[in-house]
């Protein structure tokens, strides 16, 4: 009986080239294509799609504009206006995005950590979150979602249909809140952008994790282009990071 421990003899071991030559040519090509497949970059994907769809006219052109809008929404970037331009009769834009344009679109940010100490201006101040637009509240009500302005949490009042994913509702509330700092001399109101990943939905009877988290992060833009990202815990400012755009 042949011993497995001995392993193959040097004659039995084939080089990569020999193995490749044993394979049918199509298979070799397929293997190489799989290895060399470029990674999908969002902006390039968008440019690639736009290049493919711009030859259409009339009704198909309008539909192409919608498909590009869907891409922009999938990417979640500021490409929406470009998608709309595709629908217009005389869009003024380059055929494809240059590397420089793509680079410009990348959010270049520098994070500076700022920790509040006792007695500092914002630390410990009560915060209250309110909707800028009443229609947002109405929409949430329609979806049976209750917003807790103190905790920054969202409660789904009914269990909802099976398979309901509260994460899908997050874009609706993103950017829809104002932040009010309760100060001695009155209330200072700032418009803020909510960090969606920290918005909490509380679903009755669906796990402890979703009911115990009460931290929310909110972003407040400053006039110099920087933004303060506040961490709110139990209705109080617990810390902040200042995010500055790199020059």
């Amino acid at each position, binding site marked *: 009986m042949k011993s497995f421990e001995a392993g193959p003899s040097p004659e039995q071991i084939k080089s990569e080239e020999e193995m490749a030559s044993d394979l049918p040519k199509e298979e070799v090509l397929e293997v190489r294509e799989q290895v060399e497949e470029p990674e*999908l970059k969002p902006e390039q994907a968008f440019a*690639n*799609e736009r290049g493919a769809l711009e030859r*259409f006219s009339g009704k198909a052109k309008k539909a192409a504009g919608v498909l590009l809008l869907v*891409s922009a929404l999938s990417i979640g970037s500021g490409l929406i206006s470009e998608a*709309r331009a595709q629908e217009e009769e005389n869009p003024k834009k380059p055929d494809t995005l240059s590397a420089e344009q793509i680079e410009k679109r990348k959010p270049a940010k520098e994070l500076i950590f700022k920790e509040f100490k006792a007695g500092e201006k914002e630390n410990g101040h009560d915060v209250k979150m309110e909707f800028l637009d009443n229609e947002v509240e109405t929409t949430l009500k329609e979806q049976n979602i209750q917003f807790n302005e103190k905790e920054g949490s969202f409660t789904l009042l009914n269990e909802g249909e099976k*398979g309901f994913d509260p994460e899908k509702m997050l*874009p*609706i509330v993103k950017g829809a809140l104002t932040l009010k700092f309760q100060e001695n001399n009155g209330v200072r109101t700032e418009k803020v952008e909510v960090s969606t990943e920290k918005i909490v939905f509380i679903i009755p009877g669906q796990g402890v994790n979703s009911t115990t988290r009460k931290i929310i992060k909110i972003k407040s833009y400053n006039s110099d282009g920087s933004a303060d990202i506040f961490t709110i815990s139990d209705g109080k400012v617990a810390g902040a990071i200042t995010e500055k755009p790199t020059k």
Partner: protein
Amino acid sequence: MPLQILKGKNFQKIKELILKSNLPFVDQNELIAAFARTNNLSLKGVLKLFTEDNLWIKRISENYKAKREALTTGNYSMWQKIVKEEESQLQELER
């Protein structure tokens, strides 16, 4: 950034059409949430497309989900497949 999206009539009409469609509840929500991030003007074309042929609601829902998956996984060939499918749908419209 204030939320302007929910003010628009286009969004409301699109939302109604999606809710009336036979898409699964989760897909309906996903699509509504996606369009909720868009301004009213951008939604004009969507509303026209959905009103003219409600088959496009399902197509767009599938297109959105596929694109999300391709982008999340960085799958280049999947994206190319999506674009090919789009081209064929648009060619059908041109006939």
